[in-house]
Every structure is written in C-alpha cells, then in structure tokens.
C-alpha cells in the first residue's frame, strides 16, 4: 500500500521535508514516459486510470518537457529540482564572467576552440546528464551506436583481446565528455580514458557519477580544460580520440583537428559524431527537435556551425588523418532509438586514422554487415580522397 498511496489525489500536502521514496518517483516518471514498453495488462487499479489518462494526455513520446498534468505531488518534486538548477545556473553565470576572459588572455595569440557562448547552455543542464529519461536521453541511447562503432574499429587493429575487457591496454581521450556518458562505457570495456570538458559543472557531475564505481574510478580521469591546454603534455599518447557531438560546438575546426592529430599516436584512431549542414538538418535538427518537440534543449545547436561530411573529410585528409568510415545515423523520436543509415544528411559518424607517415592505407570496407555497397558509394562522392590515393 505504501507504493500506491501517494498517487491518490489530495493525499500529499506540501513538498518540503517529505522523504522522497525512490519507487514513487520512479512510478510517476513511468506514467509520463510512453515509449515502447509492452504493458503486461495486469496493472493495479490505483495506477490504472491515472496511468491511462497520463499516457493519453502526454503527446510527445519521450517526455522531455514534462507536463504537470499527471500528478501534483511529482510536479512539486520537479519544481524543486528546477529551483536547484536555477541556483546552479546563477552561481555559474557569475563565475562565467571571470572565466570567459582568462581563456583568451592566456592563449592570446593561439586560437581557442572553446566557444564561450556555448558554455552557458550546457552549464544550465549540468546536473541532468545522468537522467536516462531526461533531456539527454537521445545521447544515452546514442551509446548503442557509438560504443560498438568505437569498440569494433579499435578491435580491428589488435590481434587478440581479453574477453570481458576488450579495450584493456588502450588509452582514449574523450573530448567534450560532458557528464561522462560515453566515457564510462569505454572505461567499462577496459580502456584507460581521460575525459575533458571546458564546463566545470559537467566535470563535477562526471566525477561524482563515477565515484561510486571503484572500477571506473581507476580507469577514468576527468579534467576541466579544453583540448589545446593539454596538447603539449599529451602529445602522441592516445590510441584513440573521441569527439562525439563536439565539433558542431567548436569555433575553429581546423585547429581542433590539428590538436587531435598531435595527441594521437601513429596509427591511432579519431572518432567523430556530428550533425550535417543541410536543409534537412535545419528543419529537423533545429526547428523540429529544438523548437517544436523539445527533444533537444533550445539553443543547443547553431546551424551555421554544423559540418558536412565532405568538409570534414577534406579537413581530416589535409591534416594527415585518413578517413576510413563515414556512416549516417538516424534518431527515431518515437522509439527513442538510433539506427545506422546510408543517409548522412542528418547525423553521421566518422572514423579516421592517423597515417603512419607512409602511403595512407586504402580505406577498409564498412564494418557493419550488409552495408558495403553504400560505403563504396561514399568513397566515390569524395573525389579529393580518391585523387590523394592515386598520388
């Protein structure tokens, strides 16, 4: 009975001081998030009518802008959380003024890749990283694509690996790690990972989250800094650099790629996932995802900074990184899952390898089964790559 009682209207009075029970909060979130769950059909009465009402009334599939229709009590919980986030935002913004200038002062002559205006958006959401059904849910589910992508491409280069810890012995740099969403899976697979992010709050969240798991504590290190700041001390030390959902936020892509090149070992891999600059990505990625459906928080992306795969390939190739794979990714907002696709006009992933200094190797075939034809087509799209190979 102690589970179902809070759901009955009127039984809750006030919000402060009442101990929050994990399963009632869990239950309320379940009421509000539809998705693809198969209902056993044998739910309890007390939840029944309210659950149906909530499901019918919630229009979007994954509730990111949570509507308070469902339950007064849970709304109070959420308002408490929003209040907390506002306090953090204000605290950060006041510190931002001091932070903004040191970057340009310290590196007056060299260019920084960190866009200080981008920082603001991420600071406000710093504590929401690890909520799997929250604002960062699409990034959580993107792990189903990007972790195998990174893992399989890295394993191709090794003769044999330890079962259970396939990436052990590898050093990986996760640039723009945010709350550590991608850093932690890589750490669990055995790699030693350094995660860097310019937003202090993100690093704090990431540190806090990994502190509970002794295995991850040992394998992952977080630093609040930008890529340029660590280039000198970490030159040629990483087997892989991961820049996932990052390059659409940097100011100077050329410098960024050069820094990535410098920190990679010879034969090391660079993994990038980002958004293409097309009309479709404007319509779906900005207008629909941010403004209409609220899948992505408003102001996260600026269309001008999106990078097309062709532009990315040319920058990579001209900086000594040979592109092995470019693959499109598609997000289904109804199911909340990502899929690989031949179409790169929205999101895409790229894998490039730092050349050994000799003839760059012929790009390997597509990793995933059944898609070999598309990749060969992709190679032919980029004539500059082919010309380089002929030389």
């Amino acid at each position, binding site marked *: 009975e*102690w*589970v179902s009682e809070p759901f009955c209207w009127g039984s809750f009075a006030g919000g402060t001081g009442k*101990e*929050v*029970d*994990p*399963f009632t*909060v*869990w239950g309320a*979130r379940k009421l509000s998030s539809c*998705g*693809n*769950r*198969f209902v*056993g*059909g*044998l*739910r*309890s009465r007390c939840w029944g009518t309210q659950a149906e009402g909530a499901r019918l009334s919630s229009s979007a599939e994954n509730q990111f802008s949570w509507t308070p229709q469902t339950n007064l009590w849970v709304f109070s919980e959420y308002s408490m959380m929003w209040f907390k986030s506002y306090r953090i935002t204000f605290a950060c913004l006041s510190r931002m003024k001091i932070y903004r200038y040191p970057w340009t002062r310290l590196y007056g002559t060299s260019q920084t890749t960190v866009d200080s205006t981008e920082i603001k958006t991420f600071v406000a959401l710093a*504590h929401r990283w*690890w*909520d*799997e*059904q*929250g604002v960062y849910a699409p990034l*959580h*589910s993107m*792990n*189903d694509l990007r*972790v*195998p992508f990174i*893992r399989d491409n890295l394993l191709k280069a090794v003769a044999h690996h*330890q*079962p*259970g*810890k*396939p990436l052990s012995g590898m050093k990986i740099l996760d640039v723009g790690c945010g709350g550590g969403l991608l850093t*932690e*899976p*890589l*750490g*669990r*697979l*055995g790699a030693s990972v350094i995660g860097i992010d310019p937003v202090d709050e993100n690093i704090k*969240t990431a540190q*806090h*989250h990994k502190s*509970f*798991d*002794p295995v991850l504590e040992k394998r992952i290190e977080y630093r609040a800094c930008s890529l340029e700041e660590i280039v000198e001390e970490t030159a040629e030390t990483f087997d892989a650099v991961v820049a996932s959902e990052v390059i659409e936020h940097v100011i100077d892509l050329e410098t960024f790629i050069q820094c990535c090149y410098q920190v990679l070992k010879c034969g090391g891999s660079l993994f990038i996932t980002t958004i293409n600059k097309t009309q479709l990505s404007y319509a779906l990625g900005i207008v629909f995802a941010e403004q209409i459906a609220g899948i992505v928080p408003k102001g996260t992306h600026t269309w001008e900074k999106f990078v097309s795969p062709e532009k990315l390939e040319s920058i990579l190739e001209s900086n000594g990184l040979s592109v092995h794979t470019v693959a499109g990714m598609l997000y289904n907002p109804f199911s909340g899952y990502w899929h690989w696709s031949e179409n790169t006009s929205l999101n895409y992933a790229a894998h490039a390898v730092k050349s050994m200094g000799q003839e760059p190797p012929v790009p390997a075939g597509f990793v995933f089964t059944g898609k070999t034809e598309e990749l060969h087509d992709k190679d032919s799209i980029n004539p500059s790559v082919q010309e380089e190979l002929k030389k």
Partner: protein
Amino acid sequence: LLSCRRWSGAKADTLYDVVVSGGGLVGTAMACALGHDIHFSDKKILLLEAGPKKVWEKLPETYSNRVSSISPGSATLLSSFGAWDHICNMRYRAFRRMQVWDACSEALIMFDKDNLDDMGYIVENDVIMRALTKQLEAASDRVTVLYRSRAVGYTWPYPFTMADSSPWVHITLGDGSTLQTKLLIGADGHNSGVRQAAGIQNVSWSYDQSAVVATLHLSEATENNVAWQRFLPSGPIALLPLSDTLSSLVWSTSHEHAAELVGMDEEKFVDTVNSAFWSDANHTDLSDAAGSLLQSAVGFLKPTKVSARQMPPSVARVDAKSRVLFPLGLGHAAEYVRPRLALIGDAAHRVHPLAGQGVNMGFGDVSSLVRHLSAAAFNGKDLGSMSHLTGYETDRQRHNTALLAATDLLKRLYSTRAAPLVLLRTWGLQATNAVSPLKEQIIAFASK
C-alpha cells in the same frame, strides 16, 4: 522485508555486478549462465541461497519424485554452459510422443514429431540441481555462492542521481552484513521477497487444487517414450516416463482428494491411478455421438492419418514414501523489471503444471536475460539500466502472458462436466488434432 530508507554511506560494502537472490533451478541456472558468459569474464556475480549447501555423493538408485519436463529450448540453454553434459552422464528420459485426451469423451490429441526428434526430456529436479551446481563450481572465480543467506532488507536507488545517495541496490542479510549490487535478479519463487520489497503488483489466485506426485513402477517394461495426460473433471493426471520400468505421476486434483490419495494404502492407490487412466465412466452418450460425428467428418476430409486412442501402460506398484502433495496457483507480476531489478522464474510467473511449462518458462527468462545482459556488457553499459531490462521484459511478457492465459483457460475448460463445454472442447481438441500445422505451431511455441 519492506525497506525504503535512503542509503548514504557504507562505501566499504562489497560491490557486485549482479546478485541473484534465490538458488533454485532458475536462480542457479542464471548464475551459471552469467558465470560462463564470455562478456562477464571480469564481473563479480553473487548467488544468495537461504538453504544449506547440498553435498552430492553418488546418484541414488531410487528416483526422486520431483521431476520436470525439459523442453528442447531449455536443453539448449543448459548445454550452452555445459550443464546438459552432466545430466546426460547421470540420467534423463527423452520422450517422442505426447497423448492428451479427455475423460468425458473420445477426443484426443497426439503430438508426434515426425522426424523422430525428441519432444522433451523428463529429468529429476535433483539431477538438474547437481549438474548446475557442478558447473557453478567450475566458474567459481567469477561466481560466489552464499548459502544460508537470506536477504532481510533492500534499499532501492533513485532512478537518477540525487545528491549523495548511492546509485546501487543495498541488500541486508540475515546476519546483519550488507552488500551492494548494480543489478539484483529476483529468482526466489512465487512468494518472492524481492518482488514484495519492490512493491511490484502481482496478480495471483490459488487454484482449488493440489498436485500429487509419486514414482510408479509399471507392470511390464516397455519402450516408455510417450508422455500421457488425461483430463479428468477433477483435474489432469499425467504419466511421465522415467525409465523402461518407471514413470512419474503428476495428478492435480481437489485438496480433499489429494490428501486422500496421499493417505490411502498402496494397492488402493495403484487401482485408483489405473482406473483414472483406463475408465470411461465419465463418457456420456451425447459426447460420444458428437465426437464420432466430427471424427468421421475429419476422416472423410483428411483420410491420411487417424489417431486411434492408445492406452498408457498400467501401473503395478508405487514407490514407498514417494507420494507428496503441493498446492497449485497462478501468479503473474505486473512488471518484470525496475531500475536495477529483474524478476525471473516463479517470482515473475507461476503456472499450473498441466502443460509442463513452469520451469521451461523460467529457463526461457534466463536465456533472454542473459542475452540482453551479455550484449549490454559488451557495449559497456551500466548493467542495471532500464534500456536493456525493458527489452527483456517485453520479450518475456509477450511469451509468458500468452502461455499463462492458455494454461489457465485449459484448466478451467477441462474442470467441468457441463455438456456444452464438453462438446466445445471435444470438437476443439479433435479439430486441433486434425490440423497438423497447428499442432506443429503449438509444439514450436512450447519448445522454446
């Protein structure tokens, strides 16, 4: 057992990747499967069992009275971590045909695999436990087993990080020690403590029936590779082959009759069993007429195969002290998963033994959950994350709900002597018997 206080300390507790609560057939199989899974090579798994550790010596001559019908799908699971080989080295009985018929009419259905594959295997529960325990010991570097440990309290994590609260499940054992885990798997039977502590709603009712089990000696040695089941109005009686001369009895009947059966002397018991299988006292003229009507229609349309009713072997003796009874009921948990929690086996679903599916559904849960967890581990995912746990839930709820509903329907349909229902089921059974593709579908579904 209910515990919902926040846990904000004790980081010194051992942190396990998976804790399986309950060391029965399904729980032990789960721990075994995870222990032998390649992607779990560096993970720590714990199995909690309230009972004492059983020391196995030589296999006893007498057969145990608790047996299970293992489907080919379950056999595949058991062989995937090497337990099936141990079972083959001990003893089991394969059966190739199954005859199910009504006591109130001539209707029968015969399941027969043309390609002479085994339809299923009758294995004693003790034999299965021995095989599982052996394989568990082989994986002892990854799987720890704590005997005589009963969990008395659970503390659940919040679904998202909140302040300083621990994100893991905390379990308090009877001796006061605590441990933490990233995923708790509840395999503690139909009165699951884990399920109750999590507050998961459970739809359940008890059938007004008890099952009587016994080990029977047949009058003469036969090939004995057929499973027999007859639906009496009081409940189904089944004879499952154990060896050339032995069979296991499972008779579900009313509580009073069950108590009577267990109490009566051996000769009377043997006579009762034989007449339950052989006597046509419950036939009525109406049902006979209706039955033969449809049968001739079927024979006209499809004159290829006419299954005549065969009689099961007659029973001569019953093993002393092998008669036991246990109550029956149905149960189904509304949710199989919560963040960092999954239910498998009888904790998630409890079924009537008439279809021989109880432990097979449990093994099916194990297969599905191991598959999902293995893929999650290979993707570096947090093992307690709902994204793959809901995949397991959807997978199994679809299969189990259908089977549970069908079994319950059959039980109710065959519990009556009322003429219209008898007619309905007579025709239904005969029609199903005539349609081979339908029978093949049924076998395929039950073999998973």
